[in-house]
């Protein structure tokens, strides 16, 4: 990815705009210039490539799973192999793709630019996080190579302590990934606190940064608990220490408390940055100031804090006490409110706007649709009595795919298409972009909506085989999955094509008011020659479309020093 002809072609990009003579891609060349780079932009790109690779890998596993489930009985793989498939699909997608997802790939690239800083606070730590990520990934791949693991991504004891598949490499890999995540969060918090240039006060920060900040809080506070949990699990397997293993006097339900104390906040590590991306895309493509900036920012922090109080809703039938069930059910409903608030604010932002249905906006809209379903089906699972029936069925599977895939990953692709011109200096084909967006949307619903129905009828999750009664639902689901896969291959196609043949991107193709669009595409090595003056990040009215040159320009006289910020 490093040395594509981008650099050469970029010349006309400069001729057209304010592109720096050399950008972060051309600044240095060769493998080492990437492997040892401290530049947040290059680290972001390296993360992006790794993420997309693992997304492909996890996706292929999912295809195998869906192929096996097309009809009852075992056709393609054995039962134990199937269990390894869904375990690795879950582990790879959760720990290698979705949790790091938006913050490390898009966040790393955009955060300092949006802030008007030259880099993150600790560039070396940033690179270290990346290599921790790689190391953790290698451990998980090693586990696959040496016969896989079949515990499910939740590693519940005592199954995980008794199965004779090799759990330890995977668990250790996840342990390492945890620290990668902690250091990224730490880095972001310090950057946002200490590296804001003069004029960039808290309420001039784009909402994406607010969401990254909230995410980082969770990463720093929750991930260590995952660390100790997995550490104890490793010790449990290696030395049978007997803290979580009932056979030795331990308490398996305690393990579940530990696991979910991290893994539920982790759901918000996944979805908060997604909400941040949407909060950037919707105003930009509606050419309108975000509605209720303060409410959206506040709700991000509220979600971050509340997310620590709801983990028990994964344990309503696990032997958790009725008292615990009541407490956690109540908190769970509480955390639903801020999300609802965000959705309404996004709608109000579109009201009376000038809405352009370009690819990022298409993804943002399908986010609203899919996350709407995902969030609302969460209500069924927060309601105690209905959760007893729906827990551990395909209803849950569908629910979290609507949230994680339909929420986080769709927003990830919205962001990818939104910042693609900035990252690569190339425009992609709008037509193909729109087409794949539609195909993903249709395929996704076809895949996962039937799973709600069969789940409500009692189809348990993690079943390698199923009663014939559920066959039609599974068939539909598999068809949808294959359609989605095709759509993603299409996306890969036109994005790769854009890298080489794409039209050079202007500095501000979408007409966004946040700072990253004030530097050239792709940005120069040290981001900003002069630290830009931060204004209201959503004061889009002052940007006028320059039809002649084909991009947006701040028209000087209309430049209201948008301090209003719509906040505070």
């Amino acid at each position, binding site marked *: 990815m490093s040395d594509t002809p981008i650099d050469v072609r970029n010349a006309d990009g400069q001729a057209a705009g304010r592109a720096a003579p050399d950008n972060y891609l051309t600044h240095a060349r060769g493998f080492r210039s990437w492997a040892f780079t401290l530049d947040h932009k290059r680290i972001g790109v390296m993360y992006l490539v790794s993420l997309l690779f693992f997304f492909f890998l996890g996706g292929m596993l999912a295809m195998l799973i869906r192929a096996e489930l097309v009809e009852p009985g075992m056709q393609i793989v054995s039962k134990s192999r199937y269990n390894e498939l869904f375990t690795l699909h879950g582990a790879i997608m959760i720990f290698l793709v979705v949790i790091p997802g938006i913050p490390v790939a898009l966040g790393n690239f955009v955060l300092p630019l949006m802030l008007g800083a030259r*880099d993150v606070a600790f560039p070396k730590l940033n690179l270290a996080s990346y290599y921790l990520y790689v190391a953790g990934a290698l451990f998980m791949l090693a586990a696959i190579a040496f016969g896989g693991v079949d515990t499910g991504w939740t590693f519940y004891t005592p199954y995980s302590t008794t199965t004779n598949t090799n759990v330890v490499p995977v668990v250790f890999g996840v342990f390492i990934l945890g620290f990668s995540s902690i250091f990224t969060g730490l880095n972001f918090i310090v950057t946002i606190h200490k590296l804001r240039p003069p004029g960039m006060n808290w309420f001039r920060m784009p909402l994406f940064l607010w969401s990254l900040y909230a995410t980082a809080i969770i990463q720093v506070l929750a991930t260590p608990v995952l660390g100790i949990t997995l550490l104890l699990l490793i010790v449990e397997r290696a030395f049978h220490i007997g803290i979580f293993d009932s056979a*030795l006097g331990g308490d398996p339900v305690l393990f579940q408390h530990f696991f979910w104390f991290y893994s539920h906040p982790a759901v918000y590590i996944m979805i908060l940055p997604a909400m941040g991306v949407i909060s950037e895309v919707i105003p930009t493509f509606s050419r309108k100031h975000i509605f209720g900036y303060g409410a959206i920012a506040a709700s991000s922090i509220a979600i971050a804090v509340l997310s620590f109080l709801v983990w028990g809703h994964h344990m309503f039938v696990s032997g958790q006490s009725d008292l615990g069930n009541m407490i956690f059910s109540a908190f769970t409903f509480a955390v639903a409110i801020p999300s609802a608030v965000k959705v309404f604010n996004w709608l109000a932002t579109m009201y009376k706007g000038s809405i352009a249905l370009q690819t990022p906006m298409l993804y943002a809209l399908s986010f609203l649709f899919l996350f709407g379903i995902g969030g609302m089906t969460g209500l069924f699972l927060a309601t105690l009595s209905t959760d007893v029936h729906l827990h551990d069925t395909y209803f849950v599977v569908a629910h979290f795919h609507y949230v994680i895939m339909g929420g986080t990953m769709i927003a990830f692709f919205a962001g990818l298409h939104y910042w693609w011109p900035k990252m690569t200096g190339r425009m992609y084909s709008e037509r193909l972009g729109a087409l794949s967006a539609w195909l993903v949307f249709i395929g996704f619903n076809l895949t996962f909506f039937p799973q709600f129905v069969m789940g409500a009828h009692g189809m348990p999750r993690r079943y390698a085989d199923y009663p014939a009664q559920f066959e039609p639902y599974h068939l539909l689901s598999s068809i949808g999955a294959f359609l989605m896969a095709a759509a993603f291959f299409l996306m890969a196609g036109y994005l790769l094509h854009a890298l080489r043949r794409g039209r050079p991107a202007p500095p501000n193709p979408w007409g966004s008011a946040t700072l990253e669009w004030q530097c050239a595409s792709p940005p120069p090595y040290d981001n900003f020659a002069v630290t830009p003056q931060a204004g209201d990040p959503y004061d889009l009215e002052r940007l006028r479309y320059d039809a002649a040159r084909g991009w947006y320009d701040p028209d000087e006289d209309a430049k209201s020093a948008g301090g209003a910020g719509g906040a505070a």
Partner: protein
Amino acid sequence: MHDRESSSLAHGEHPPHLQHHFSDEQQQLDSDKLGMWLFLVSEILLFGGLFCVYANYRAHHPEVFIYAHRYLDTTLGGINTVVLICSSFTMAWAVRAAQLGQRRALVTLLALTLLAGLTFLGIKSVEYEAKWKHGLLWGTHYRPVAEEPAAPGSASGGAAPTAAAPTPAPAPTPASVPAATGAQSSGAGQPLRQGGQWIVEHSLIPRAAQGPAGLASGLAASQPVEPGQIVEQPKNVQVFFAVYFAMTGLHAIHVIAGMVVIAIMLLLALRGRFDDGYYTPVDLTGLFWHLVDVIWIFLFPLLYLIR
């Protein structure tokens, strides 16, 4: 995690201390400090998990903790506490010396801190060794070994008196130990089988299916069966040692990590890398070392001073 630690310290080791993306020393110092505090936060939550395990089993099985903590040697634990507190003091002093640019003082104090850390680990290893020798371990490795009551010169040093007779203070005198174990003579090194445990072992699986009720009756009935055996021994004592080794073990790992970082600081100080204008790494190392101390300050009463 300590190597990450040092790498986060690492930047700025070489002059110019000010990195390109910081506008001034103040900003860099503040960033480093905040970063370190956030790292400490994650450390606290890491140990928080273990404290949660502790609280959980302590709250629901007090009898296990009261019975088992007697195997721990309060004297050695206390000494270690003092050692660690003193090392914390020398570390704080070292930071002060660094701030004032007193290089020799800095070197000496760092060396002292390192020494204290070594002492701590040394004493800990003595304790571990004693536990190992007496089979006071976790899970299935919990096999209390009967020793001749006055086993002299056991490596466990101060631990001998308590560990020698694996019976709690209010328990039968050591004389009753052979009585309890009956046929299998309890020579040193041979597992001492508490009748109390055996009864449970045999009644457990079958009776479990009948519910706590059935089991309870089994336990109630288990006392009269063989009088004179060690009935005070509660069940699942091994859990205490699991918790003990998990907590002290992870803490020991952090001590080692801290010592590695201190050693690095010592080298840098010897090379004269620090002056009154640049001492952030020493400062941050100090923060980490103090946290290790803070954790132990809680571990000591929780594990050794149970009543």
